[in-house]
């Protein structure tokens, strides 16, 4: 059992109904699962005696909580001032279109999750985005699409290989 799991189950186990426990519980559930699955909501609801509707309300209120698993590749599009001026919005539109998801959304195949961030700290490269630890600068919508397609192709290849092995 990893430490996060211990933390989550420990917190649930020793929960004594004190108010204010809900957010820490949700945070540890998210650390454990990478997102907050439905069964965790149901479970927390039972233990804390809080209706699921209220818990879901808290989750959808705070942007830190996720209801879907994180994609394999995390795209962080910079929307800081420099990037904004350099056309981050058109990049965002292009990425949304290419991926078929909204901000904070994960693609159906679970490959990408799209985030926007306030500033990546590489304003000289504006407009910029990071995919995992890799930074891409001076982007155009077409360039951004191309990067996505390249990664997707590699992922597809990998998946096929795994299939043929299995």
């Amino acid at each position: 059992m990893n430490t996060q799991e211990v933390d989550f189950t420990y917190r649930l186990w020793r929960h004594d109904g004190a108010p204010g426990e809900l957010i820490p519980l949700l945070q540890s559930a998210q650390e454990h699962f990478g997102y907050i699955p439905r069964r965790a909501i149901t479970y927390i609801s039972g233990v804390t005696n809080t209706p699921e509707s209220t818990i879901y309300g808290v989750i959808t209120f705070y942007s830190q909580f996720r209801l879907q698993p994180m994609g394999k590749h995390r795209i962080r599009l910079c929307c800081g001032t420099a990037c904004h001026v350099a056309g981050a919005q058109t990049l965002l539109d292009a990425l949304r279109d290419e991926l078929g998801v909204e901000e904070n959304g994960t693609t159906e195949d679970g490959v990408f999750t799209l985030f926007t961030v306030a500033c990546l700290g590489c304003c000289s490269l504006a407009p910029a985005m990071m995919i995992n630890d890799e930074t891409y600068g001076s982007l155009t919508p077409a360039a951004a699409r191309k990067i996505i397609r390249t990664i997707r192709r590699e992922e597809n290849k990998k998946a096929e290989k795994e299939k043929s092995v299995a």
Partner: protein
Amino acid sequence: MPTLTINDITVQAPEGATLLEAARTAGIHIPTLCHLPGVHAPGACRVCLVEVEGARTLMASCVTPAHDGMRVRTNSPRARNGRRDVVELLLSEHEGDCTTCARSEDCELRAIAREAGVKEVHYQGERRPTRLDHSTKGLVRDTGKCILCRRCVAVCQNVESIGAIAPQERGFGTYVGPAFHAPLSEVTCVQCGQCSLVCPVGAIGERDQVDEVWRALNDPHLHVVVQTAPAIRAALGECFGLPPGSRVTGKMVSALRRLGFGAVFDTDFSADLTIMEEGHELLARLRGALGGGPKHGPLPMFTSCCPAWIQFAEHFAPDMLHNLSTCKSPQQMLGALAKSYYAEKIGKKPEDVFVVSIMPCTAKKFECDRDEMRDSGAKDVDVVLTTRELGRMIREAGIDFTSLPDEVMDAPLGISTGAADIFANSGGVMEAALRTAYEVVTGRPLPSIQLEPVGPMAAGGVHQASIQVNDVVPAWSFLEGQTVTVAVVHGLAHARQLLEDVRAGRRSPHFVEVMTCPGGCIGGGGQPRPTTDEVRQARIRAICEEDASKPLRTSHTNPGVTQLYEEFLGAPLGERSHHLLHTHYHPRCFVAKAPQAQKATPKPCAEARPES
């Protein structure tokens, strides 16, 4: 007692009163919207703003305590403009069209806009997104009309302990709804409609089925009969401007005839019948538990007239379903009889009789649709209309309700006693059952007993009483000297607590009446709005008067019921009643799967749903 001035009038406010309450004692009206007395006062809507001398901003009077020496103005230009701005802002987001909205007649937002003197909405902005939820039988929801007062959330969570709905998302995107963006039918909502009773606007209402009834009435092949619940006669008048508590039984009957119903029956009849069946069931259970007779189900026995309570038990108390009386609710008994006993009498097939129920209740719409409710060979009750829908239907037909003559219900399913009338009040089913059971067991009438709620009841309540049984007739000798304990609960939060107490052995009543709606069915989710505590009190009084006005006041003296047993059913709990008048329940509970290595045992029926 703080002394303050409001609009230059000196007011002695009760200790702990808010400015709103202080103003009311002085006869000064301040509009409110989110405030729901006895249930919730979040101070959120700001419709009740007043000017307090020395305060920087206008204050929400519903949450500001009255202090000694305060100088308050409710009527200054600043206060009036402040309130008007607030209302204008609400209107600018409100996605509603008053001309077609089912709520326009009694909409609180509309009334407040008038009161605040709004003549034009100066703010132009985005309207609230509309999400329609038509998933349940009883209710429809439209978030576009919602003004986010959260009254419904407070009632659902605090009074009914269901928590089916809560605010979701944030900012302008905030809306009230169930978890998981799920429709209401997929969460533990019991369709009591209390949310629709307190919603100030048209964002939650009953599913309107008036047109279905018109269609049936116009179908020459159908014999359309109607039954009216006990609670309607004490409330229907409010739809036509009569004061709360007006008894309109006779006018209601003539209105129904004029609408074209072939026969007007009384759910009171089957309420009397329920007492015969349920009373005997209770005595049989008592004999099993106390008198060494054959076991006939566990104690305490819970009443089963309220479909929202039944659904609650199926969700949250699957371990106690055998404690529910197996009796169907009076509406379903009458439906089953109308399509068997009565249909035979008039030489019709069950499917050619169409049964409409007028109920104070949205959960009854759900109940009549249950698979178990088809024992006559067809759907026992075809359509349920709430009091509010009947009011609209009468108006649509152009009937001048207040000038109607008084008429009486049709035999045989329209004959009733006073014991049936009080089914409408919390405590009434209990009292009616005790009247008959006590008389059967002792041969004497029940000593007077106070079971209906007194005082505030918006949040529900619980009431326990004991009856000493002495000098019994020989057949019931096992009850000699016993003390029978009964409990009366209204509001499911209290029912949940009582269930916990019974499970833990802290309470052990023999018989428990549960009504979902505060005050009982007179405060049902389908009743005219507003239903405040004063209105509930007035309706309860009217029902008690109706009871007192009847020559017969115990169910077993109802001649129609006696005839029914002689001609058709045989004896209470007999073969035929078992088939037509009794039912069974099934758990709706899904226990959450615990994460592995989880020590806390999940509650047997916490708010759990299957994984998606």
